């Protein structure tokens, strides 16, 4: 009997007439082909990949196949891939693992002002333990300057960790140029390594670790139409890391713990599909994003597009809507079935405007009014048109309520 995957189309809340998911940078729906591969692994390939018997060897072979696929996505060798529980763990292993083995050479790290909280949080933690951290500013376009990096480099700098593409505004950092700089310094005798968080970039940009010149690179499966709970760290051959999970020999002594075989198989299948369907997905997403931005600009006044217009991911749009606040807009959109996200949060009377948008040098009102729309392979032009229609209505409704529009004569 042929295998029948249990996963069909997503079943969505019947209360809303229509549901449109535009939050693909937060997570992506699992591709039914990925779910099918994962289910086979769950049901038919339950062995422990460390076991010597046939069941174990069958699981080991599945893990090895997936490792080859993940390596192929980023132009790496398969023995340079360490599977982890996701992007955050991979970032922890990269940064803590490298710092702990490099402390004899220096205690200075360079990062950017707009890293994902997992990297930003690690840097804060290391500062508490006596490390010095230089955070490179981004400018109005959301991109660091290489001159700033060159000035920040010191003889005791051991790690540069700069994300490849930002999770809120999608701006792409000049990682390959940083890689060249790191190689020059290393040729001159400095013990300096480069890590890049490529969680948002994987599957969206062509990736090659040699072209980037990075030593460590983080990716996560659930941004690639695979489930949560699985990710990987690329570790260039020869780079020493202090393991953060000890008590087992798995992952070449770098990450102890029984392998998550179904998750790894799903990740392998998802990366294979991401590679094979790369061009088709990239042009599809970009077309939808551009359609969305063009229509939103035409139908809604007083919008500010955040981040560089060219050096950014093709599936993502970050827009600030003047006079209104992001959370209110998000919930208004959600009530009509459109799912998006905002980097700002207001809780316990304390405002936390998005640190990423603030880093662009914009005022609090714009930082509070920013919304991220991120498109994916399952979205359609009809989704985009519906989203713009709902967005336009919601913005108009909220502006009619806003005292900030009084002086602009918008609400009479």
């Amino acid at each position, binding site marked *: 009997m042929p295998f029948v995957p249990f996963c069909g189309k997503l079943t969505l809340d019947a209360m809303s007439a229509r549901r449109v998911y535009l939050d693909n940078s937060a997570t992506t729906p699992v591709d039914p082909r990925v779910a099918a591969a994962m289910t086979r692994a769950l049901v038919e390939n339950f062995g422990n990949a460390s076991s010597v018997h046939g069941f174990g060897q069958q699981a080991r072979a599945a893990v090895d196949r997936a490792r080859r696929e993940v390596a192929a996505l980023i132009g790496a060798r398969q023995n340079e891939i360490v599977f982890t529980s996701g992007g955050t763990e991979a970032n922890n292993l990269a940064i803590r693992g490298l710092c702990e083995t490099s402390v004899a050479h220096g205690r200075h790290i360079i990062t950017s002002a707009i890293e994902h909280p997992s990297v930003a949080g690690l840097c804060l933690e290391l500062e508490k333990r006596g490390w010095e951290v230089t955070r490179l500013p981004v400018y109005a376009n959301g991109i660091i300057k290489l001159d700033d990096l060159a000035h920040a480099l010191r003889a005791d700098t051991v790690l540069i960790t700069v994300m490849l593409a930002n999770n809120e505004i999608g701006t792409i950092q000049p990682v390959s140029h940083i890689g060249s700089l790191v190689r020059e310094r290393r040729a001159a005798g400095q013990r300096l390594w480069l890590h890049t968080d490529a969680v948002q970039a994987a599957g969206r940009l062509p990736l090659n670790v040699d072209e980037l010149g990075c030593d460590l690179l983080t990716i996560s499966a659930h941004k690639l139409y695979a489930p949560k709970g699985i990710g990987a760290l690329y570790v260039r051959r020869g780079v020493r890391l202090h393991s953060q999970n000890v008590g087992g020999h798995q992952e070449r002594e770098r990450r102890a713990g029984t392998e998550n075989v179904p998750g790894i198989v799903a990740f392998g299948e998802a990366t294979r599909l991401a590679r094979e369907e790369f061009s088709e997905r990239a042009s599809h997403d970009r077309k939808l994003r551009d359609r969305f931005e063009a229509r939103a600009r035409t139908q809604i006044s007083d919008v500010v597009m955040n981040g560089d217009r060219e050096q950014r991911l093709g599936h993502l749009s970050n827009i600030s809507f003047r*006079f*209104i*606040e992001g*959370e*209110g807009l998000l*919930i*208004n959109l959600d*009530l009509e079935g459109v799912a998006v996200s905002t980097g700002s949060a*207001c*809780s*316990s*009377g*304390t*405002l936390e405007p998005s640190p990423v948008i603030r880093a662009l040098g914009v005022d*609090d*009102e714009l930082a*509070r009014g920013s919304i991220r729309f991120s498109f994916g392979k399952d979205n359609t032009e009809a989704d985009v048109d519906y989203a713009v229609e709902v967005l336009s209505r919601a913005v108009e*409704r*909220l502006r*009619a*309520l*806003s*005292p*900030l529009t*009084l002086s602009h004569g918008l*609400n*009479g």
Partner: protein
Amino acid sequence: MAYSSVFKDHLAHPRNAGELPEANAIADEKNPVCGDRLRLSLIIQGDRIETARYLAYGCPPTLVCGSVLTELITGKTTAEANQLTRADLLKAIGGLPSRKHHAAALAIETLHSALS
């Protein structure tokens, strides 16, 4: 906790939104920490609140508190309106997560300010 159906209804269909040019009591208060803002304009005839309008900027609970508050106070005497507390407003909304109670506090503060 999830937002109540009353909350969602007021968010999607705000009541009494706007400004009253002929208002005889106005208050515009801002939460200095988070920047949320509520503006209330009232027409008081004798000692009774005949009409109430509001404008709000901020997180959804602030928008909803403004809308629900105007419904609560319309038709009440100023003495009755002055008795309204944060708890009364929270009850009318169907509750708010504790981290969002500041929205109800801002609304009551704006009301008292308008009536003072």
